[in-house]
């Protein structure tokens, strides 16, 4: 930036190894006062490791951390916080049952003092939220807030602690495009106040919009550092991935009959996940249907209904032309639905089972793998070996516990498990979350190949870019309601963003009557 810039924070030649893996290889990053620096990189590029080094959660093998010219002692998790560095994590660290004010002041005030100074704290929070355009009521219970509001609480929490360097980890992953704009306005105000910001992301257009400088990580190494005014999105993408990004090949496929449909489906309210409200959806052969939306708007319920985990309270699931009477995961699998679950660690696999046991998880009771209640380990092992071979699952052998595999290889096993049965319907729920670019391309090519051979695909993703790149038609889900169908290219991201924010839907009163 300017010549008289004051350095706020710098990480110098940080190297961190985990056994064979070098997560950070001589990475340097600095941010000046009043500057936004973006840390750009694919999943697994080493962004999180770098931040953990900064906060003293890991001790770097070499390199130093300096905050306002003071070198921080390595491995001390309080040092960075005390020096005025604050972080807003991707997964919020708020207590749902406390109010906004209680969450913000938690841990700031001494427990030994008799007076809590509530009035003063409240005045300060109100002032901060006015100054930085972070509208949220101090007395609201956090459990009742929307995701966007919770993020504002997190930022307020950092500001309340007088942070001078604010780190935001993938802050826009949970926001609509419009909310993102609001966030950026707040960040610009913060810079004016003399704060410094590190903005971690893998979304290029956001980085271009907000950052002054960009540091790109690739496979733990510095792939480059440039001023945003001297670069463009394509150059950044090339830096991030090592090659020019190639858009997936979505040559038109032959459209067929509807294979699965939801007719006015409303899901029961169990209190744990947001419900679907009278949703209708059609999955046709040879088509990828994308479900866009901000996280927590009913995607989980949608995936559960299609995957057989949840039965509609009202409405029907229609398979081909028949209304489904009994709907369980096993029946869904037997009906030819391939299910790629959102969380491969918690629901997709059993960590302590080996690859063979995980490969047959959905179909162990079918006659392919068992007879009269006795498993055929011979056939099961052959099946697992076939998946390992065909889907290039990197592992020491089929008797390895699956927890030892990387996320990408775990996902390949799941893909193989469901695609080997030649499914006609594919439910892909966040299929590339947390995968590196190679694995992402692989998963996408498999979905496109399935579409080409006439399968119907439902792609649920919080990444709007992914949905727009792959889908033939897009529905937006917001607060449990489904938008009409939009054809490829019919809508701009901004227009979809309005739908994601809940605009354009008919009011609920029509359903209430």
């Amino acid at each position: 930036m300017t010549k008289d810039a004051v350095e706020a924070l710098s990480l110098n030649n940080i190297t961190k190894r985990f056994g064979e893996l070098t997560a950070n290889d001589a990475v340097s990053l600095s941010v000046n006062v009043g500057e936004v620096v973006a840390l750009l990189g694919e999943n697994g590029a080493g962004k999180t490791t770098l931040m953990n080094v900064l906060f003293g959660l890991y001790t770097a093998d070499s390199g130093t951390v300096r905050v306002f010219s003071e070198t921080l002692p390595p491995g001390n998790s309080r040092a960075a916080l005390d020096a005025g560095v604050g972080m807003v994590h991707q997964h919020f660290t708020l207590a749902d049952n406390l109010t906004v004010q209680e969450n913000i002041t938690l841990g700031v005030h001494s427990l030994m003092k008799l007076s809590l100074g509530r009035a003063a704290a409240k005045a300060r929070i109100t002032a901060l939220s006015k100054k930085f355009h972070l509208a949220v009521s101090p007395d609201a219970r956090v459990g009742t807030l929307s995701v966007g509001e919770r993020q504002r609480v997190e930022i307020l929490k950092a500001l309340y602690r007088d942070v001078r360097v604010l780190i935001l980890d993938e802050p826009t992953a949970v926001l609509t495009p419009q909310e993102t704009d609001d966030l950026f306005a707040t960040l610009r105000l913060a810079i004016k106040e003399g704060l410094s910001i590190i903005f971690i992301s893998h979304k290029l257009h956001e980085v271009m919009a907000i950052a002054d400088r960009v540091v790109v990580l690739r496979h733990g190494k510095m792939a480059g550092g440039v001023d945003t005014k001297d670069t463009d999105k394509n150059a950044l993408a090339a830096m991030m991935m090592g090659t020019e990004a190639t858009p997936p090949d979505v040559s038109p496929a032959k459209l067929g009959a509807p294979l699965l449909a939801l007719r006015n489906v409303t899901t029961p309210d169990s209190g744990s996940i947001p419900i679907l409200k009278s949703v209708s959806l059609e999955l046709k052969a040879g088509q990828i249907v994308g479900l866009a939306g901000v996280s927590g708007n009913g995607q989980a319920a949608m995936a559960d209904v299609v995957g057989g985990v949840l039965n509609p309270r009202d409405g029907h699931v229609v398979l081909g032309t028949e209304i489904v009477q009994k709907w369980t995961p096993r029946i869904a699998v037997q009906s030819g639905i391939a299910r790629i679950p959102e969380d491969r660690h918690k629901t997709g696999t059993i960590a302590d089972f080996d690859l063979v046991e995980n490969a047959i998880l959905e179909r162990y009771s079918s006659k392919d793998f068992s007879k009269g209640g006795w498993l055929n380990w011979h056939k099961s092992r052959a099946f697992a070996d076939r998946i390992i071979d065909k889907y290039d699952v990197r592992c020491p052998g089929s008797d390895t516990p699956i927890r030892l595999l990387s996320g990408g290889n775990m996902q390949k096993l799941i893909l193989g498990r469901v695609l080997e049965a030649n499914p006609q319907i594919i439910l892909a729920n966040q299929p590339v979350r947390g995968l590196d670019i190679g694995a992402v391309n692989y998963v996408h090519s498999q979905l496109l190949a399935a579409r080409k051979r006439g399968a119907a695909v439902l792609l649920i993703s919080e990444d709007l870019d992914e949905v727009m790149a792959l889908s033939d038609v897009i529905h937006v889900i917001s607060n449990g309601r489904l938008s009409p169908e939009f054809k490829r290219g019919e809508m701009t991201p901004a227009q979809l963003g309005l739908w994601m924010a809940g605009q354009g839907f008919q009011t609920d009163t029509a359903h209430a009557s």
Partner: protein
Amino acid sequence: MRLEPIKNPTLARKLAPPMIALFATIVIASLLAMVAGANPFTVIGLILKGAFGSTFATLETLNRATPLIFTGLAVSVAFRAKFWNIGAEAQLYAGALMTVLLGTGVLPWPSFAILPVIIIAAILAGAVVLLVPALMKTRFGVDEVVTTLLFNFIFLLFISMLLEGVLKDPMGMGWPKSARLIPEARLPRIVDGLRLHWGFGLAIFSAICIWIIQTRSTLGYEMRAVGLNKEAAAFAGIPVNVVIVKTALLSGGLAALAGFSEVAGLKGSLTLDLSPGFGYTGIIVAMLALLNPLGVVVAALFVAGIFVGADSMSRAADVPTYLADIMLATALLLMVLAIMLTRFRVVRE
């Protein structure tokens, strides 16, 4: 400093915990023996001799191990599916009750049919006793630790009521004791003239069956899947609640066989002191065996050996038999500790 899990433990590391626990238990027992004023080598030697030093001693140990194998299997089966059955004691008495109800001459069938019928009925009785907590768990989410544990006390009081009332042996001189089994309902001895009965054979057979079920059958696969990750099991289409109920039936049935084998093989009648806590000791056996059904046999022999050996050691060396209880407790604690130390490594930051 912090602990970091060792990702792929070698076979040696997997086998190390029981060895370390055994060794450390002997060291601690020796120290206690010294405190009691005896020579530790003599004490350990006497325990070994008392447990395995003669044919009579060995067979006594095998007899004592028999109910522990059954209750150990019952616990290991349930724990494998993360169904915490603490109520093997009640299920044991249910099996024993069924044995005396049917074995005191009420069955009109030919003699060769009597034992099989009693065995099946005893298994069913234990299964039904555990079915109630299992259904309460799957239907209403009631914690099975509480229900199975409390059921032990209820069931023991119920047995006490029966023994003071309808089941009381008229020839029993007023003692709370049931009538004796008819000879056809007794488990024969394996070798004539020696006290070891076929209950031991049935226990070994059961352990092998359970091992085959766990490693080869779809039910065993389901039970392991539910135990390791209920959410993934449900997503994959495994009927979790059905599996829990099936597990409970199997576990209850196994524990009931302990009661059957004690009454039909050893005691011949039902009294309130039939089990000195076999149901609870089964938990220790199962944990020492790391829930492996074949390991249960080894662990039961170890535990039975300590009890039988300590009895005879106590008479010879004048060290209290409580040493046996302490040895069991330390063995269990050290086992847990040894597992942690062999599965994790300490990383210095």
